[in-house]
């Protein structure tokens, strides 16, 4: 079942056409990767899914409703979670607090004036959050302040924050950016686990190793246009893709 449909999306920035008639369909429970050389428009496209940018024309439909003109929190409440290129977490709070907040958001909605209740008494939320930290392997650091984590661990925390909301769609913007090999492999394992639970994922990536380990389908974006959309094995030998990259791929 198609869960995300992007149709005829165009976006111009002044004289530059960043996105040109982009079409994309993502089936539920699959991992769909978006690759392409630098400047191809991948991040621009992602920003159109998350309420940061409005496309000039086109539609973005998710689970039966349009994602356009929604605010970021509304998009999240619709079931879309995202991970940022540089992990965005609550640095001054502890890990457990970091994961409890999205849990609260899922349970209580976008706003609730729960000013006289006590966080300590929220056992269920606490338990759920601890489970997520277990899943990503950060149990022992639950009471650590998030700013002290390594980059790889911050990424895991961010993923835990997304998972606790049981998202229908998980958007990942270069999840292994800036990571060394060991960290990257760990992240791939974690992402595979997440995919194994049936969570739909859209991944923007540069690291081909990551892409080919995870993706069920790949869209290749170059200069704002989707040049190919196919299964991974067909992408590998594709001449057009190789031309687009001109040696930029890490194979």
């Amino acid at each position: 079942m198609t869960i995300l449909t992007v149709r005829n999306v165009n976006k111009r920035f002044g004289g530059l056409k960043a996105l040109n008639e982009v079409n994309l369909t993502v089936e539920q429970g699959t991992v769909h990767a978006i690759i392409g050389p630098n400047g191809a428009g991948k991040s621009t496209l992602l920003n159109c899914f998350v309420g940061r940018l409005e496309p000039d024309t086109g539609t973005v439909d998710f689970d039966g409703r349009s994602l356009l003109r929604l605010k970021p929190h509304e998009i999240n409440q619709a079931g879309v979670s995202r991970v940022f290129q540089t992990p965005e977490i609550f640095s001054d709070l502890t890990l457990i607090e970091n994961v409890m907040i999205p849990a609260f958001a899922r349970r209580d909605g976008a706003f609730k004036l729960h000013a006289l209740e006590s966080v300590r008494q929220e056992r269920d939320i606490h338990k759920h959050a601890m489970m997520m930290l277990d899943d990503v392997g950060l149990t022992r650091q639950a009471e650590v302040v998030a700013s002290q984590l390594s980059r790889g661990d911050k990424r895991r925390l961010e993923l835990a924050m997304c998972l606790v909301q049981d998202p229908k769609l998980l958007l990942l913007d270069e999840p292994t950016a800036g990571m060394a090999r060991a960290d990257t492999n760990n992240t791939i394992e974690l992402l595979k686990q997440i995919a194994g639970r049936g969570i739909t994922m859209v991944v923007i990536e540069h690291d081909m190793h990551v892409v080919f380990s995870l993706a069920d389908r790949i869209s290749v974006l170059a200069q704002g246009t989707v040049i190919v959309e196919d299964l991974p094995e067909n992408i590998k030998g594709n001449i057009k893709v190789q031309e687009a990259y001109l040696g930029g791929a890490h194979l």
Partner: protein
Amino acid sequence: MLANSRRGDRALLLFFVVSVLLMPFVAAPFGASYPDLLQKFAIYGIFAIGFNVLFGLTGYLSFGHAAFLGVGSYAAVWMFKLLSYNVVPALVLSVIVAGLFAVLIGFISLRRTGIYFSILTLAFAQMMFALAYSVLTPLTNGETGQQVYTGDPQYLALATDPDTTHLFGVKMNEVFLKTEFLGFEAQFNYGYYFAAIFLIIAFWIALKIYRSPFGLMLRAVKTNQNRLNYTGINTKPYTLAAFVISGMYAGLAGGLLACMDPLAGAERMQWTASGEVVLMTILGGAGTMLGPVLGASFIKYFEAVFSKINDHVLHDWFSFLPDPIANLLTVIVSPFVGQGWHLTLGALFMVIVIFLPGGLMEGINRVMRLMRKLGGSERAAMAGHPGRVREGEP
């Protein structure tokens, strides 16, 4: 210092209640145990606690909170004029009116963040200050300030009511007990305890907020508002709620000020008065529970004390030294005391922001940690977290 636990919070609350109730004794050795000053400790403590809910938790720096203080005062005085000197309706109106203003100003100002927000609040406060002196003079009485005149209706006043602010007959400024503590005079008056009750309630509410999911969201706003939005939380109502809550605290403080002295003047709304509550909160320790009250008391105390020190007093202090040195010291210290209190305050503020951004509370915590370490308990020292005060520290 105290872990984030039920017991820790209870102990904190108990400590606070006891300190506040015994304040006339505690203040006596410092020469501070008289009604006017004690009341100021309590009232500005309330102001600072409320400001801390906004600034300490969300990080939004408002330079316009004095406007709510002023509005609260004016509202209270109008109740005195129209109804009676009974403080109850006055306070109710103070909080409501201040809250309404806070909704309006907050709604507009919070459309922006960071310094834009600060300037917006400053702009609104200055606007209200200017208006209070000009157009709103029917309400505010301009420079003279608003007070109760013999011609005022006071519709609900009974013949038996006192001719000053009271709570159902109990006069606010009446001193019901004068005693000695450690050789210093301690005065107990109704007004202080009236304000102190509100202070305790204010503290309790702030503690609840701090420990609540709402408080958690506010702290998340401070550290990464963007992330919070993408996590499905609509941050605007959260920040507005924090703003209005802190505005209502300020309104209550303003109303209480009028309860102690039924006079409301526009100078309370000047941006320098807003600056003062910023100073109090930061000096005490923003984001902590005890910090704001500590900072408020500290500033009000030294304001009272310093203004009494003049060259004669200084010379007396230094009289045990040979005359030329005594004279020199007097000259050096003189600009910092008496009329120069603001100089000392400004310098102290800078020192705190530069070296001890967690304020006096951070200083106290560090000293306690040091003492624990010296006391031989290495484990206990490790349990404390270095640097900034975080959740769990009072």
